[in-house]
């Protein structure tokens, strides 16, 4: 008998402790509803797996709908920034426009470049798609909503799985056998690998304060209203939030960091050669990623599903979480229609010369802060908010007068 069938090869789920939400669900909800003859023999392990699969199915069904909404929102917001109305024809106020686009993409020809690497070409969109979906497995959406896989290393898992996206991008660029695709994928690789460092270092400040990598622990530590949100906990996390946010924009390849898919330079970057449903997969992954990154930002810095005031539901719970996340998504769109695209050297300059040193400074500062103050010390929060306030006001007044001057007229 091979070893694989022997007892104890697979780790068994510990049913007695009931630490797994799916096991709880099977024990508390499903088994009481079964007929008595079956209930005693119901396999708990199988039931647990089935419940988990069902919950994952909900995500697989719901998350592709996100881009449907977000693409329309993006187009409408972009139109507002340019005093236009955006799509108006399909459905009332153009609300069915993305659905029509999706149907169009499904019926388009699925072209595979004959000179390219066929296997990698077919595989690449699925890797990107799967990775951007896998991020959703560890995001805490609300108090009563179970996290599909509640790791104690949630944020580490998210960082790891979102790094795999680069592989898909490089595969897509290489296998297309197109200079635009290859250039785009190389740019994307350089960009994502670079910006992952300030991203990770910013997350590290949060992890140092919370002393846990679990997403649920991070959210639970911000339960005391808006000033206990990790963005206001120390002045360093305040800076870290902005570094995290800008780095995450670079991470999802959005303007002003959209060099990998710069239309005016390299057509569409790594997905130039894709069409039909495979292109739609890239598109869905891009917008799902955008939402996921915003959700992570909300979870880490803006209190997750915790409300503004302790004990009140305002901006709390699942609706509050979604509102805060969409707020960050709106910020991304706002930045997109404000800033022009960076040059490659500017991009690397910003990352390596500014974000990474400041992130290290943040980690140092957060460590010192953690040594000085006790965890969840009210004084520390007060001092932190005061420092942030004074810093902002100071930057606005004193530095504003001294640093930003109009260029003096040159003698002719």
């Amino acid at each position, binding site marked *: 008998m091979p070893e694989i069938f022997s007892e104890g090869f697979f780790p068994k789920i510990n049913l007695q402790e009931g630490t797994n939400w799916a096991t709880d669900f099977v024990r508390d909800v499903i088994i009481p509803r079964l007929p008595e003859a079956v209930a005693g023999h119901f396999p708990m392990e199988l039931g647990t797996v089935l419940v988990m699969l069902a919950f994952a199915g909900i995500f697989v069904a719901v998350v592709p709908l996100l881009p449907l909404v977000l693409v329309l929102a993006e187009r409408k917001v972009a139109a507002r920034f*340019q*005093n236009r*109305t955006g799509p108006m024809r399909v459905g009332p106020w153009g609300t069915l426009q993305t659905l029509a686009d999706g149907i169009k993409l499904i019926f388009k020809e699925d072209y595979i470049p004959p000179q390219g690497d066929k296997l990698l070409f077919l595989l690449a969109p699925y890797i990107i798609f799967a990775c951007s979906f896998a991020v959703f497995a560890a995001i805490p959406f609300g108090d009563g909503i179970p996290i599909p896989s509640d790791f104690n290393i949630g944020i580490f898992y998210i960082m790891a799985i979102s790094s795999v996206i680069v592989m898909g991008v490089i595969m897509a660029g290489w296998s297309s056998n197109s200079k635009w695709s290859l250039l785009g994928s190389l740019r994307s690789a350089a960009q994502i690998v670079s910006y992952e460092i300030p991203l990770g270092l910013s997350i590290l400040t949060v992890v140092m304060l919370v002393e846990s990598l679990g997403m649920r622990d991070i959210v639970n530590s911000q339960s005391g209203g808006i000033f206990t949100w990790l963005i206001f906990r120390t002045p360093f996390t305040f800076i870290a939030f902005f570094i995290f946010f800008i780095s995450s924009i670079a991470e999802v390849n959005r303007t002003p960091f959209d060099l990998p898919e710069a239309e005016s330079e390299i057509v569409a970057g790594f997905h130039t050669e894709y069409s039909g449903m495979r292109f739609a997969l890239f598109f869905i992954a891009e917008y799902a990623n955008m939402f996921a990154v915003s959700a992570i930002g909300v979870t880490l810095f803006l209190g997750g599903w915790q409300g503004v005031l302790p004990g009140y539901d305002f901006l709390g719970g699942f609706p509050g979480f979604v509102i805060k996340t969409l707020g960050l998504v709106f910020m991304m769109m*706002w*930045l997109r229609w*404000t800033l022009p695209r960076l040059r490659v050297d500017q991009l690397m300059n910003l990352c390596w010369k500014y974000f990474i040193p400041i992130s290290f400074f943040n980690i140092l500062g957060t460590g010192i802060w953690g040594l000085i103050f006790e965890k969840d010390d009210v004084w520390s929060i007060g001092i932190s908010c005061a420092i942030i306030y004074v810093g902002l006001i100071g*930057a606005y007044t004193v530095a*504003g007068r001294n*640093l*930003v001057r109009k260029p003096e007229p040159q003698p002719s």
Partner: protein
Amino acid sequence: MDKYIRNIYKGVYTVLVGMRVTIRQFFEPNVTHQYPYQHDFEKKQNVREIPKGYRGQLYNRIEDCIGCKKCELICPVDCITITGDKLPKGEQLWDSMNVVHLKDGREVIGIIEGDDKKIMSEDSMTITNITTRLGSQEVIDRLEASGDESRTETFSTEEVSRVVTRNPVVFYLDQFDIDMSLCMYCGLCTEVCPTQCLVMKDSLEGIEYSSFDRTDLIFNFDKQEMYDKDEAENTEAAD
């Protein structure tokens, strides 16, 4: 170090300035014109009015057309098709008559009492034998509503913009078709038209007449009922 901090500050500051500019635009009213669904050109400040002399859809006022086929000849793309025939010698569709164009856009077709040449010097003109058969729809409606049996109306000279004399018609226009899908809008046909009855519309309906079927763009301007003498006599007898 000073330059480094200054750089960071400038970066943040300029981004914030830019974001302030864009968010102001976010709350501005939009300028989009939902064009095929909204025709209110005049209400939107950013849309100019259609200029005078715009070369829009061709329109032929068949009552004035003399069937000379000059337009058909000069048309570079052969989009005008005219077939017609002369009536037997001595026959004519109607007698000579006057078309009085009023300043409010209406037109009255009839015979002016008295000497034609003196009309503009007098204070008012009386038109008898007003024919509803060829007049504009507004005049027909007005005459029928008033129940005026005498078919005579008097207008003051201030109301009248111009008077045209229409000669007796001695031909029969069988077909006057213009295929606007072929037309290149050169306007040559309107220039050669001796009676100025073939015009290009410079109004809104002269611009928007697109259709999903190409055959809908062939416009027929012949009015068969105009030449239908028996029916016309019957209506006159009934009156």
